[in-house]
């Protein structure tokens, strides 16, 4: 029993220490944005690398999720005589939940891992110290361009995932199940509001911020050579993924308060 309480205490302390370190990093990022100088080249490079470079992963994820979700919905909904609801359900689910969450998870695996590994390797090979020794703050140089790049790219990637998810669902339902194209599209458009798409993009922005802060934190605190970099990279992906899933629930409630489902101008 004593051992369990001790473990619980250690986990709680570890969690609050982690949260404190993340808060420190966020404050330092705020200072860097206000006082640091803009680095357009590095930021542009990050947008290309994390945004443009993640498109294939995001398109495939969005398209196949949209297609399979549409098929499963059609099987049950057509049994119940609710086939007209397939398009709206797929669209709302993609816009509000599946699009941003799956994009966030895929990007955390692709981009978050790369950020933690790159910065972690720089840390253990003294490249971060070299930056500091030249009067360059590592947050200014390494974190801010990545943060701007990803927070700019994520909403666009989410929109892309939603778009390809809807396209794939349309192709599958119309071609495979012989549902009339205009009938399907009418129900999708009539039941999807701009607010639904906005929710997906807002979530994308927040998830981008979570991925950057968690991954860069793991990179900057890496120690102990290759083993430490490996641990940091794994931790970055696991923590970002969990943070996305947990934050998504609270964000869904919060955004639903401002943009309730069905309130949009359909």
């Amino acid at each position, binding site marked *: 029993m004593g051992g369990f309480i001790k473990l619980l205490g250690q986990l709680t302390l570890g969690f609050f220490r982690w949260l404190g370190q993340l808060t420190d990093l966020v404050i330092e990022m705020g*200072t860097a944005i206000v006082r640091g100088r803009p680095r357009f080249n590095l930021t542009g490079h990050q947008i290309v690398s994390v945004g443009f470079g993640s498109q294939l992963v995001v398109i495939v994820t969005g398209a196949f999720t949209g297609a399979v979700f549409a098929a499963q919905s059609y099987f049950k909904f057509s049994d119940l005589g609710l086939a007209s609801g397939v398009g709206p359900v797929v669209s709302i689910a993609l816009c509000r939940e599946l699009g941003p969450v799956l994009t966030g998870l895929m990007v955390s695996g692709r981009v978050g891992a790369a950020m933690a590994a790159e910065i972690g*390797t720089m840390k253990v*090979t*003294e490249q971060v110290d070299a930056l500091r020794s030249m009067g360059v703050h590592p947050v200014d140089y390494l974190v801010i361009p990545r943060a701007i790049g990803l927070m700019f790219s994520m909403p666009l990637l989410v929109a892309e995932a939603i778009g390809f998810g809807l396209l794939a669902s349309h192709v599958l339902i119309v071609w495979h199940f012989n549902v009339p194209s205009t009938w399907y599209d009418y129900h999708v458009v009539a039941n999807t509001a701009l607010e639904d798409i906005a929710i997906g993009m807002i979530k994308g922005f927040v998830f981008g911020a979570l991925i950057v802060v968690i991954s860069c934190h793991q990179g900057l605190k890496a120690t102990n050579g290759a083993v430490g970099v490996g641990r940091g990279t794994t931790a970055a992906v696991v923590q970002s993924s969990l943070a996305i899933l947990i934050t998504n629930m609270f964000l869904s409630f919060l955004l639903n308060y401002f943009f309730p489902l069905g309130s949009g101008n359909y």
Partner: protein
Amino acid sequence: MADTRKNSSNPFVQISDLRKSFGDQEVLRGVSLTIPRGETTVVLGQSGEGKSVLLKHINGLLTPDSGSILIDGEEIVGLSERALRPTRRKVGILFQDGALFDSMTVAENVVFPLQEEGIRDRKVLLERAREVLSVVGLEEHMAKMPINISGGMRKRVALARAVINRPECVLYDEPTAGLDPIVADSIDHLIRRLEHEYEITSIVVTHDMKSMNFVADHVAVLRGGKIYFHGTPKELNALHDETIQNFIHGRSGESRS
């Protein structure tokens, strides 16, 4: 052991009672040292004595538990990362493994400090890169990536990067470690050449006695977390102290069985 050299007029670095622990391990236990301006001071000591830790304190890369460090008359202990910026520009550092940026070419690495100072003209940057790389004998390797040059070359590139913006002081962390004797000798000559050409104050951390004898104007021996000896190389070599003599001659002090 007493400080046998009293040439401390207008020093560049003044360290007083510096203490640093990592967990339970007390590495520096009250180090006091004065580094004269425009000369080369070598910090000698066995592996694990805290030489690199001492060096990283001088550039503010580590924060001491207590003590004082004056760089060019200005206290740096307690300054934030951003407030340290002007002081760091006066002090370049050569890291043990060079710490070149993997993603940049040799030339890009070398001109990085200038770009950070706001110089954007590519012609000027290229000219300065060529100039400083010719001093270290690597101007024909400008376009190569760090992964494609040898360890000795990487150190010379790192040295070029450390001096390109003409710092007042350069810190060398084991500059000859892991190099063959010929390349190590060329690095020693470079340290001397840079000191004379750019009038740089140099602080060299090493356990290479040959290197120490060649580059040092002053020597400090770090032992047990404190300065055990401070004087000239001549005074060090003439010292009748068993610990020092064992170190100079590379003897472990154990008898042969």
